[in-house]
């Protein structure tokens, strides 16, 4: 990207999250998977993904991430292991040069992030994940933007899940505490009734008490049947609630198993759980 004459000045916001201008949104409909489904495929799978940002070097090397219905899948790993990158690859925010991403059996490798949202993926970015100047309720409404039907019942469900949001629904989201903001962010993503929810370090920067509460809420969301794929910095807590866990090291799958298996694995413990 840096070789374009339109970019060589000080850093500014760009639209790096979209691969193309999003005007193609309306052309995508919301059908479920077609017949390309592989037998026994997980609900969401990033299969042997290799790729990196722009024209840069590959960060992921044949990395596989999957989430089953009703399960919580967690990606953990040391700093710089490519955890967030792997999730962004699943969500289409970077080029996957090799490998595929399939949702409900349908190949979505070449869709833009917005098109994946329409297909039923909910994504909560790590930062700037709410509209700070808008009220909590407006944040949720914007989450439901692609829906033309009545979304009041979904909003009621979100309020049931996060009662504090109902209390503060007319307050600007930017005035809330860190934990409450994360709840708004998750609530916003839930408004589309996603088929899968992806969370990028939902507990970054919140206190341990709030973290526990957020984890409880995430488990509750998973119990409603929505598969959850999340990246976590707090490996131990994340592994405790994980049905499936992926340990990435330098963009490669290092260990895979259930959360309990990995917690018990001496090598995983030694290398980054601190013994």
């Amino acid at each position, binding site marked *: 990207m840096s070789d374009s004459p339109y*970019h060589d000045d000080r850093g500014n*916001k760009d639209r790096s999250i979209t691969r193309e201008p999003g005007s193609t949104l309306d052309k995508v409909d919301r059908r479920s998977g077609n017949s390309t489904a592989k037998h026994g495929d997980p609900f969401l799978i990033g299969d042997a993904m290799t790729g990196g940002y722009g024209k840069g070097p590959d960060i992921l090397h044949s990395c596989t991430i999957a989430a089953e219905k009703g399960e919580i899948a967690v990606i953990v790993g040391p700093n710089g292991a490519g955890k967030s990158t792997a999730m962004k690859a699943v969500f289409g925010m970077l080029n996957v040069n090799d490998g595929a991403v399939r949702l409900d059996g349908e190949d979505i490798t070449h869709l833009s992030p917005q098109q994946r949202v329409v297909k039923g993926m909910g994504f909560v970015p790590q930062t700037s*994940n709410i509209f700070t100047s*808008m009220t909590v309720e407006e944040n949720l409404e914007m989450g439901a933007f692609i829906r033309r039907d009545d979304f009041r019942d979904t909003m009621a469900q979100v309020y049931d899940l996060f009662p504090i949001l109902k209390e503060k629904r007319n307050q600007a989201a930017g005035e809330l505490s860190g934990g409450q903001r994360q709840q708004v962010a998750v609530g916003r993503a839930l408004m589309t009734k996603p088929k899968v929810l992806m969370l990028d370090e939902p507990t970054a920067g919140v206190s341990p008490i709030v973290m526990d509460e957020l984890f409880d809420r995430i488990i509750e969301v998973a119990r409603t049947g929505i598969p959850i794929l999340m990246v976590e910095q707090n490996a131990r807590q994340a592994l405790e609630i994980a049905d499936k866990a992926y340990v990435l090291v330098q963009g490669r799958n290092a260990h895979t198993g259930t959360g309990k298996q990995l917690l018990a694995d001496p090598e995983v413990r030694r290398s980054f759980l601190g013994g």
Partner: protein
Amino acid sequence: MDFLNALVAFANFVFVPGLAYGAQLAIGALGVTMIYGILRFSNFAHGDTMAFGTAMTIIATNMLLAVGITFGPLPTALLALPVGIGMTILLVLAIDWLIYKFYRDQKAKPVILVIVSMGVMFVMNGVVRFIIGVDDIRFADGERFIITAREFRDMTGLREGLAIKTTQAITVVVAVIAVALLFWFLNKTRTGKSMRAFSDNEDLALLSGINPDWVVKVTWMIVAALATTAGVLYGLDKSFKAFTYFQLLLPIFAAAIVGGLGNPLGAIAGGFVIAFSEVTITYAWKKVLVYLMPESLEPDGLVQLLSTDYKFAVSFAILIIVLLFKPTGLFKGQSV
């Protein structure tokens, strides 16, 4: 009695003109602030967009007058305003499609878009002069005053008169309607909310499925309507001259920045701050002070802080002070 006279003189020479001028600046600044908030660049062509809209409205007014249609006591230009708005919308959409879209697709930095808008400004500058000429044009017709100074004096028996021009009253009324409509649109409608979301957090708005092309289009349409309205109101109140509208860019930008770029409420507040600063600093206060001070202290000079020729210096000074000490403006806006 002296105090009342002072008050009336103040209202006549400072408050009423300031209020009308402030309303005109506020509507202009709203356009600038919306472009900044949603398209993320400072649109230097805004003054000339106003000039184009006004020129179109003047032409439509003349056509209406030619076929004998007037608006009774109100200026005929108000009837022609929708035509002017329509033409301006077509123009800005064409410019966006032809020019700005290219740079958006390149994801060009805002500073590049600013320079592009300066190019557009110069082209429009020429186009407007080509169409309507460079002269001063007065196009206000109908009743000139709601109340003249003489009527006011006869009515109240005061020595000072208070004149209220029809155009001043129209300016304030139209401004209130325009602002109310705009805020209703931004806060209550689906498209309006999606525009605020887009302005707040572009990436997240795109993730939520908000169509950026539509948001950009609607923004241009609203900005064209606001610019034309501001231009016509200013032209009715004073007169139309292409060069004056180009110069209006400075107080309008000052207003938008003082209020906080990207914040509509700030643009309105900023408009009045700039207008009243300009009027109070360039007004000769002798008349008011003579009534208020004991005879021995009465001022000899005009007590005019700055000649009206230097009125733009006021906007400049305020602009620089705000940028130095409070770059996000009075209301929470984006910093420049």
